[in-house]
């Protein structure tokens, strides 16, 4: 019984003694619902809403190291936004962020899908190997980041050793122009398992009869993929790419561990991190500027949450 039904029926049922009981029970259920939900509501207010408001408020006040302690930072309105958005660094960083995110998710998705299709087949050790494939995703990113950093070391990293076997010059992976590509490679590796698992379960929801019918009609497996698998995976694809976009956008740890966001590997998230906590090359703390970049990230997250909700609804309708 839903609450909306109960409200209308309460009025109609007034006076009828045998209906009094359900009314009481429904009322109690609503109170109980609020009671059971209250820990979460309080929690969200304290641990999500408060930090967010704090962040947004900081972006409107000019904070320095001193005013951060004393708490009397002067109100600056939209000035800091103007400063950040008009700085060339913001636009360079935004461009790098988009390259990082889009190249990462395109390859994560492509490789994840290829692997999912491959693992859909029957062969020995299939389940076990699929499980092992999850390791990169479950290992703390800072550990894999450290390992990648060493593998990409210019002098003694295994990457350059490998390239050297083909007579190629060592690449300074973690610096300047190469830094962005170094973190993209590591991040693709990191995201493949996530894509593999989601797409694999998407594949399992596709009716097997379709393939049987198609192969009876003489469709090659290539045709079967493009005519059956890919179109039917569209809703799952949309959700995977959406989540991939948002989660890649906020990545800090793997980039920070590998390059500290130097050179081209600075993204909006690592930039904000560096400014907020005075880490890496940003030796001066810039709370307000960091909050401005943070607010930009919040806005993007909100937009994507709406798109996600829309995509989810659409998927439910399609079912």
């Amino acid at each position, binding site marked *: 019984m839903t609450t909306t039904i109960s409200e209308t029926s309460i009025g109609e049922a007034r006076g009828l003694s045998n209906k009094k009981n359900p009314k009481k029970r429904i009322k109690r259920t609503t109170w109980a619902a609020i009671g059971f939900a209250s820990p979460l509501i309080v929690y969200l207010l304290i641990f999500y809403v408060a930090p967010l408001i704090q962040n947004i408020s900081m972006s409107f006040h000019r904070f320095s190291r001193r005013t951060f302690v004393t708490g009397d930072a002067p109100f600056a309105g939209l000035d800091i936004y103007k400063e950040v958005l008009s700085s060339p660094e913001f636009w360079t960083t935004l461009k790098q962020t988009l390259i990082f995110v889009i190249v990462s998710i395109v390859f994560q998705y492509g490789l994840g899908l290829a692997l999912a299709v491959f693992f859909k087949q029957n062969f020995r050790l299939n389940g076990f190997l699929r499980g092992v494939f999850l390791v990169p995703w479950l290992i703390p990113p800072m*550990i894999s980041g450290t390992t990648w950093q060493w593998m990409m070391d210019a002098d003694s990293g295994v990457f350059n050793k490998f390239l050297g076997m083909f007579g190629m010059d060592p690449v300074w992976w973690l610096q300047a122009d190469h830094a962005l590509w170094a973190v993209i490679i590591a991040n693709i590796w990191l995201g493949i398992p996530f894509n593999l698992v989601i797409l694999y379960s998407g594949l399992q929801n596709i009716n097997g009869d379709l393939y049987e019918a198609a192969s009876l009609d003489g469709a090659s497996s290539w045709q079967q993929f493009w005519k059956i698998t890919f179109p039917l995976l569209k809703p799952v694809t949309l959700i995977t790419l959406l989540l991939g976009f948002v989660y890649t956008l906020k990545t800090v740890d793997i980039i920070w561990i590998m390059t500290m966001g130097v050179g081209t590997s600075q993204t909006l998230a690592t930039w904000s991190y560096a400014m907020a906590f005075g880490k890496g090359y940003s030796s001066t703390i810039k709370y307000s500027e960091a909050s401005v970049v943070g607010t930009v990230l919040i806005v993007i997250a909100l937009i994507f*949450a709406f798109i996600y909700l829309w995509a989810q609804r659409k998927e439910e309708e399609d079912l």
Partner: protein
Amino acid sequence: MKRRSTWWKTLIALVLTLIMLFPMYWMINISLTKRQSIRSGDLFPKDFTLENYQAAFGTELPYLGTSLIVALCCVILTLVIALPSSYALGMLNLRGRKSLNFALIVAQMIPAVVMALGFYQIYNQLGLLDSIWGLILADSTIAVPFAVMLLSSFMRSLPMSLVEAAKIDGASQWTVFTRIVVPLSRNSIVTASLFSFLWAWSDFMFASTLNSGGGNVRPITMGIYDFIGAQNQEWGPLMATAVLASIPTAVLLIVAQKYVSAGITAGAVKD
């Protein structure tokens, strides 16, 4: 259908898995190699030693202990908050359920760096910086929205008749929740706990900002970070520490693989 031999597919799968796991292999390889040979980059630990592990055990145990406490407390906190509210969202038809669900989706998408900045300011005022409790509270925010979404969507799938029957027998909401709903949600609880544990264990953002001055009461990710920040990077002990810090992941994957996959496909997983 005719059965075809599939050994070559297994072979391809094995090769792909080995490529995928190469970084993990490399980490173990380096951790077992003597200092002077690390830079030669041999494909297996030719110059074998366990000294790196000795060094790692000597200095990193307190950090591992802290991480364990933080991660376990995070699991408990996450469940204490997520379980009752999931019951309200999944079975009690809470008013405003849709808005709350939307808030949870947004919460999952908020970048950790934004949260860290807000927390830093608040903790600074409350004096919670560099404390283990502050870190536990902050780390729990990574998993709570996910846990609520996972558990409430599972509870929604439970038959209402179970609850109705218990209520006719005179059971209170609390009894229904603790005696019926929670035991039935066992699998989802395992999945939620697993991710809560792993995310807290892996956390770098909150540890490096809210707890950077905590001395020994810092998690293992900070123990590793100290190595990276040091002037003279000691790759051997660093990689040995990394291997030790990966053990919980490996163990959980071995004993609970199906729960991990279930969590990822719940469609609401974060990265």
